[in-house]
């Protein structure tokens, strides 16, 4: 243990032999081709990522101004009068906060039940399949399903009810609830992985002190998998922030936040509004706004938010590293399309 202080070294001037690098010259051709392909793909991916960030940074920074972050959008064809994107930023944050605050407790609860109780086992298997279905469903399908549910008249208090009594089913509540379905599988998977990683001797140690299973879960297991929960939540939040289909269908694509009624928070959540993704879509050449400058600026802000979130995940995971760690790597194994920042 104390060896770190007095790093032992051979006498100066002595020849230090190192193992030679693995040479590919002796490999069969197919292996060599594969090996170099791996290199090429790896470098190519880095270039793509770099290009995205650089492109967005150049485009975004050239159009971005501080004023855009604090002004609401305004309907105008003149770019200088169409305002900023304060409302979309707020919308994104509301949806993300709502979605994760629904998904996190449910996801952790499901993960704990699946990992610690699992009884009856047929129910556990069914729950696992259900999570896979939710994880696999395209978000636009989830959105349509959500619209069907939230347009029911008995759920009218969650969105807007027209004078005719028809419930439109579009609100931050509705969008947040369906967004929770996007984040849920990630939180479940990450928490379960964390729990599965904990050795049984940790549980036995707690039982052997006369603690119940519930106390063990609450005070030992959950605190041990906190980094995994945080990882899953942050990844889920990333998915929520990036999603467009659910917003488009369940929140509309209004220009500003439109609360329903006068109640401060509930009115806002019952109301509709834009998020960054719909704002970008509407202003891009593909949408109606035809204000690509604004779209670029907003896209850059969105990218910054998601990258910031990834940074938080990395930080949380490295902090959790001493108690097992690897939460991020495990989480990324579950979603192969995202890059693994820890290499």
């Amino acid at each position, binding site marked *: *243990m104390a060896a770190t202080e007095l790093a032992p070294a051979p006498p100066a001037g002595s020849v230090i032999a190192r193992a030679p690098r693995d040479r590919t010259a002796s490999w069969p051709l197919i292996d060599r081709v594969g090996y170099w392909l791996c290199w090429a793909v790896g470098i190519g991916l880095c270039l793509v990522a770099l290009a995205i960030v650089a492109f967005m940074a150049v485009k975004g920074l050239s159009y971005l101004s501080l004023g855009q972050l604090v002004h609401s959008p305004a309907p105008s064809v003149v770019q200088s009068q169409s305002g900023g994107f304060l409302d979309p930023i707020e919308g994104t944050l509301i949806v993300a906060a709502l979605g994760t605050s629904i998904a996190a407790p449910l996801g952790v609860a499901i993960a704990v039940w699946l990992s610690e109780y699992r009884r009856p086992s047929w129910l556990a298997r069914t729950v696992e399949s259900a999570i896979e279905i939710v994880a696999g469903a395209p978000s636009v399908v989830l959105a349509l399903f959500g619209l069907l549910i939230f347009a029911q008249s008995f759920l009218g208090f969650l969105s807007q009810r027209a004078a005719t009594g028809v419930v439109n089913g579009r609100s931050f509540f509705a969008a947040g609830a369906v967004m929770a379905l996007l984040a849920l599988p990630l939180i479940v998977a990450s928490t379960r992985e964390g729990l599965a990683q904990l*050795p049984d*001797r*940790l*549980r*036995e*140690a*707690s*039982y*052997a*002190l*006369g*603690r*119940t299973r519930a*106390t063990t879960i*609450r*005070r*030992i297991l959950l*605190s*041990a998998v906190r980094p995994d929960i945080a990882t899953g939540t942050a990844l889920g939040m990333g998915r929520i922030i990036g999603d467009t289909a659910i917003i488009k269908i369940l929140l509309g694509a209004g220009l500003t936040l439109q609360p329903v009624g006068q109640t401060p928070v509930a009115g806002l959540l019952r109301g509709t509004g834009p998020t960054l993704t719909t704002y970008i879509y509407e202003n891009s050449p593909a949408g109606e706004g035809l204000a690509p400058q604004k779209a670029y600026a907003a896209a850059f802000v969105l990218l910054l938010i998601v990258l910031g979130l990834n940074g938080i995940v990395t930080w949380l995971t490295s902090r959790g590293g*001493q*108690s*097992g760690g690897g939460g991020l790597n495990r989480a990324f194994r579950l979603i192969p399309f995202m890059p693994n920042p820890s290499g």
Partner: protein
Amino acid sequence: MDPMMPPPVRRIAVDRHPYVAPAQPAGNGHGPAAAAVATPAARLRAARAPVARVRERMRVESLWLAYGENWVVRDVSLPVRQGEVLAMIGASGSGKTTLLRSLNRLTEVTAGAARSGRITLDGQDIHELEVNELRRRVTMVFQQPNPFPMSIFDNVAYALAERPGRGGRRRRRSPAIEHAVDDALHRAGLYDEVAGDLDRSALRLSGGQQQRLCIARALAAEPEVLLLDEPCSALDPISTATIEELIVGLRESVAIVIVTHNLQQAFRVADHVAFMHLGELVEYGTSEQVFDRPATQRTRDYISGAFG
């Protein structure tokens, strides 16, 4: 059995000699200065002065234990006494760990465990006690040090009896709790090494310190019986000596049962030894009886290293 282990009987004979005739004058081992210079073995001998009051705490009566269809403990009866260390020895698969785990019903955690026979704690059938109450009275230390991933203080505080009605959730660091934690760390001989920083993560301690923390945790519950499942098998000789000394010193206040693969360790710490083979209790007796005058050929073979 660990193939690296030397045939134990010769070593025992070597170790045994100074125990019979102490090289140091009697009483020398008690002074602090003498204790500092004395060898671990000498300190252990000093600690092994007979305990005045020995009384029976637990009794195992014709116990059979099975996992699935496989009976791993067959018709075992033996007493567990406070004031004594009971060592259970035997080859792998002899059922000694299962027997140990049944004493605080930890066998029930494993699916498919079955049982026949009776275990009593102070005359009361342990299967009639509430299981968590039993496990607070009969705590256990495991083969691998298993501190919780939290601070040293929290590790010990977790084991303290939770007061009903106050909800153990946000445990205040009240003077009473701090005192109890300090006391448990003292008893486990860890206090002086960690006193400066009880908020340090328990996972940063060395293996031997972690195991003593686990012992402190097990003692914080104020148990009547302490079960140790090969507590030193993952540790170095110095940590092992510290823990053995600790075990011997504790036997006055709690009844101690230790499972060990290490015959020399059994000889060093135990007052009574139970030798198990293939689920049966082959021999039970005082340490001297079992090691010096084994009654059966199987015991003789085992302690002389003929099998295991």
